[in-house]
């Protein structure tokens, strides 16, 4: 027991190894990288949402001392780099080619001695525009007279995702048995239908996006320090675009100040900095400002959906139907595994045993920034969970069934796992019903409902929100998922040194998840070495094995599995060496925390440290020296973590201000590697759920002008606004993961958002309100109050 504790392995709330560096301000972020002779780039951006470019005059900018170049689409054309492919099979203008399609679109990049000169020069670039009518409302995108956004696609009936039917149409994606679903609706005892909007928001990580590109003209190699959640994919894309062999491209993601999906894509600024460095032969840095970050790089959501449920009169759901218009902006730069234009939206049947379902999403172009990334969630899972968790409440209200009871009646039962969902997923494990009862008891649900009834009698507004969600994370099995043709495996390479310390290099990249701490714990438990002696390295493509990066809660399900598998290969070899040292056969050896001993003889012992030493001087005949392994793990399935959340909100009926009195979050992510880090992840995810549900919104006026792209307007909750979080857990291990673990960091975001919305709507349920759109700002809530006449 004591030896086990000393290892600080799986299950230990080990303090984060990266924190001493961060709290001392000694992290190394991209903007900290300063190379000799480095120049700075500044992007000239379109002030208009939709306009023809009549002319670009660079002369005044070029005349400013310290300016080296001004590049435009015309300059990139000879290199074939004025357009670039997106992850979703579309193309995106690197710099605007003859027209601009969204406000703040990249039109030119100025390269100068420093940022100040570059910024001044960017102001001097004169661009003459001829404004065109802007298309802002996705519902009008496919009107006959809608302005055409993508002239380059006119006449093409395909934009990389199957057939399209209108110049502003990108794709139609559907899943499920439409006929059976329609029949179920026709014969249903009860149906409900609601417009469900997931408004456009932005992940807004603390650090904005940026890079430092450095091309070495002598040996033709390119090094790019970049804020990327997927450095290996960046390397492959850079090679495909530039023709530089992958062996001469080195991508380094150093410390990353949060990603949340914002740092998955390839942005025009990166491409311009790389091209400028190649042309000028000097390092070029480009770092986004906050306004640029919120305005241009990868928004999330913007799903305008209609949800429907069919049920019997007891509230048992018989079918689900959904249709959404997905506003992808001016270019389809959606973040997704190649074949999934609506991501993993088909998880929308949630935690419930729904016999048939049908979902359809139509993607459309509008004059807005491109994106559609998974903001702290697996691809489109927030939208899916929001749909089912809102709709089941709508159904409960229609049938006047308690919102906890209707969930009980529909849950997939423990003995149904592995569970085959109507939309094609095989849920690995779950145990929802006992978890729900645990939360209801902890919060005294009955008491809360009683209190609510009393308050309603007094005209006071109090809401109780429930959310009992299932997520799908850990993309993913390569038979189902790839990015640009590369399967979505992940990797770990472990080297155990002669004196018994080790280094592990990963294909993932931490952005605050604490990988340096948790991966070491996995190896500590698997190899019996102290986690303090295990170094974790990520983000340098020259040293790390190829991996697909960190997003969609895939690090533990995929990278963590690779770590365990690599460690097990090492332990298997170590067992043979130990047997050799103890002069018995390997089958007669037993593993005990940090050592091998002979079966039945606990005193005949070789510790892992001793074995490590022997691996470099005394191995069995015919065995290779050394003690290392690399594993590329292709998961057999996704993992399906779940959670039961409860929120109590009090609403001021005069001002519309909301006060989150209580938020109780029970999460089940299977076996837990570091409970303290899990709790931190839950807190962080709930904060971002609170942000989205209660305040975040990227809005536009009718002409496509951004309304509020600064932190003056865009809501980032600080500790002042953030409610108190209570956390709890159950453990239902994943049967297919080597450690029985599932992803967790995104569950609180995915489950939190509908929980807040459900609480706010519940506060008005007695007045017949079944749905109100996010964000639930004081003003929006007041509007509901006012319409109902509750403020008089």
């Amino acid at each position, binding site marked *: 027991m004591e030896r086990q504790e000393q290892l600080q392995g799986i299950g230990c709330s080990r303090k984060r190894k990266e924190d001493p560096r961060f709290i001392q301000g000694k992290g190394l972020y991209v903007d900290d990288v300063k190379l000799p002779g480095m120049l700075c780039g500044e992007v000239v951006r379109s*002030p208009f949402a939709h306009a023809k470019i009549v002319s670009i005059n660079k002369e005044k900018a070029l005349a400013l001392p310290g300016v080296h170049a001004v590049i435009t689409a015309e300059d990139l054309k000879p290199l074939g780099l004025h357009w670039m492919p997106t992850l979703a099979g579309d193309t995106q203008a690197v710099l605007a080619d003859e027209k601009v399609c969204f406000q703040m679109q990249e039109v030119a990049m100025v390269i100068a001695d420093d940022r100040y000169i570059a910024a001044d020069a960017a102001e001097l670039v004169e661009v003459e*525009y001829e404004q065109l009518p802007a298309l802002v409302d996705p519902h009008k995108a496919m009107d006959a007279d809608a302005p055409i956004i993508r002239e380059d696609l006119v006449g093409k009936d395909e934009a990389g995702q199957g057939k399209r039917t209108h110049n502003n149409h990108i794709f139609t994606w559907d899943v499920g048995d439409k006929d059976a679903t329609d029949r179920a609706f026709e014969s249903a005892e009860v149906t409900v239908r609601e417009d469900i909007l997931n408004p456009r928001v932005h992940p807004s990580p603390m650090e904005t996006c940026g890079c430092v590109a450095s091309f070495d003209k002598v040996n033709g190699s390119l090094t790019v320090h970049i804020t990327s959640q997927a450095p290996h994919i960046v390397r492959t894309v850079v090679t495909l675009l530039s023709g530089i062999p992958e062996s001469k491209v080195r991508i380094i993601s150093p410390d990353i100040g949060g990603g949340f999906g914002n740092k998955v894509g390839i942005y025009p600024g990166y491409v311009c900095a790389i091209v400028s460095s190649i042309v000028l032969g000097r390092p070029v840095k480009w770092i986004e400002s906050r306004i640029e970050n919120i305005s241009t790089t990868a928004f999330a959501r913007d799903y305008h959906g209609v949800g429907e449920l069919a049920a019997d009169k007891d509230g048992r759901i018989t079918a689900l139907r959904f249709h959404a218009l997905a506003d992808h902006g001016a270019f389809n730069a959606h973040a997704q595994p190649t074949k999934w234009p609506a991501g993993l939206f088909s998880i929308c049947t949630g935690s419930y045993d729904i016999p048939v379902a049908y979902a359809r999403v139509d993607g459309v172009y509008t004059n807005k920034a491109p994106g559609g990334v998974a903001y702290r969630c697996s691809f489109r899972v927030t939208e899916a969970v929001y749909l089912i968790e809102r709709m089941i409440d709508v159904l409960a209200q229609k049938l006047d069934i308690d919102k906890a009871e209707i969930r009980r009646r529909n849950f997939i039962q423990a003995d149904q796992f592995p569970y085959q969902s109507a939309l094609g997923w095989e849920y690995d494990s779950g145990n929802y019903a006992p978890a729900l009862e645990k939360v209801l008891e902890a919060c005294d649900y009955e008491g809360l409902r009683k209190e609510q009834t009393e308050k309603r009698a007094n005209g006071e507004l109090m809401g109780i929100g429930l959310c009992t969600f299932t997520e799908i994370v850990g993309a993913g099995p390569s038979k189902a998922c790839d990015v640009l043709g590369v399967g979505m495996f992940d990797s770990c390479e472990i080297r155990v040194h002669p004196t018994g310390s080790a280094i592990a290099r990963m294909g993932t990249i931490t952005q605050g998840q604490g990988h340096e701490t948790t991966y070491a714990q996995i190896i500590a438990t698997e190899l019996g070495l102290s986690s303090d002696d295990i170094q974790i390295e990520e983000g340098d493509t020259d040293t790390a094995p190829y991996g697909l990066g960190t997003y969609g809660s895939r690090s533990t399900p995929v990278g963590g599995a690779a770590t365990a598998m690599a460690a097990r290969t090492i332990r298997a070899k170590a067992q043979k060496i130990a047997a050799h040292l103890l002069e018995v056969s390997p089958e007669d050896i037993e593993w005990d925390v940090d050592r091998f001993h002979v079966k039945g003889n606990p005193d005949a012992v070789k510790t892992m440290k001793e074995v490590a030493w022997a691996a470099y001087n005394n191995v069995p005949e015919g065995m290779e020296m050394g003690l290392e392994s690399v594993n590329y793990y292709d998961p057999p399935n996704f993992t399906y973590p779940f959670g039961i959340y409860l929120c109590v909100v009090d609403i001021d009926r005069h001002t519309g201000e909301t006060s989150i009195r209580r938020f109780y979050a029970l999460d089940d992510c299977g076996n837990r590697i570091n409970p303290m880090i899990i709790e931190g992840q839950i807190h962080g995810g709930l904060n971002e759920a609170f942000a989205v549900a209660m305040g975040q919104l990227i809005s536009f*006026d009718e002409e496509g*002008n951004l309304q509020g792209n600064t932190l003056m307007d865009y809501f980032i909750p600080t500790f002042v606004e953030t409610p108190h979080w209570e956390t709890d857990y159950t453990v239902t291990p994943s049967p297919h993961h080597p450690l029985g673990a599932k992803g967790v960091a995104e569950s609180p975001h995915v489950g939190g958002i509908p929980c807040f919305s459900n609480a706010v709507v519940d506060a008005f349920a007695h007045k017949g309100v079944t749905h109100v759109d996010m964000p639930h700002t004081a003003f929006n809530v007041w509007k509901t109050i006012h319409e109902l006449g509750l403020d008089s």
Partner: protein
Amino acid sequence: MQVTINKVFPLDGSVSDAWNLLENIEQVASCMPGAEITETVDENNFKGSVKVKIGPMHVAFNGDIAVQEINPGEHRVHLIAKGQDSKGTSSASMDLTASVRAGESGASELTGDADVTVNGKLANFGGRMMTQVADQILGQFADNFSSRLGASAGSEDPAQTASEPEPQVQEINGLKFAWQALIGFIKSFFTSKA
């Protein structure tokens, strides 16, 4: 970003004096703070400029003014002004109908109905201030118009009197402006009858 503005300002002069001033587009333009007519293309088309400074933003708009209608019978002018700022980062357009009529308290009244559309940086930056800023600009315009009318009331040739001394083109003062806009914004809380 579009705002619709409807205003009525009392004037000191008579309807006919006010109309004499209103139908002279160059005179009217010079009452607009920060504005001037830079070129007369023909009797109905002009080129002009407006300078505005709001906080850190300096915007100089150059644009075209096209007179759609001058109706002496109803004392009404209708014009459309369109412009871009010199850096190409903002654009604005205004569809304005202005008229003079007999007033209740004063001798006459100036009415203005305008649809103002702003795009680009100014729309991002000034979205919520637009109405207040437009109110302030029009308020100053009405003051200038009224005082010019007062100065020319006794004169035989209003145009001549008004043209000397040469009207001073003043850049709109940002700070003063922001302050007045803020006061206007706060006042609106207490005056709106919701």
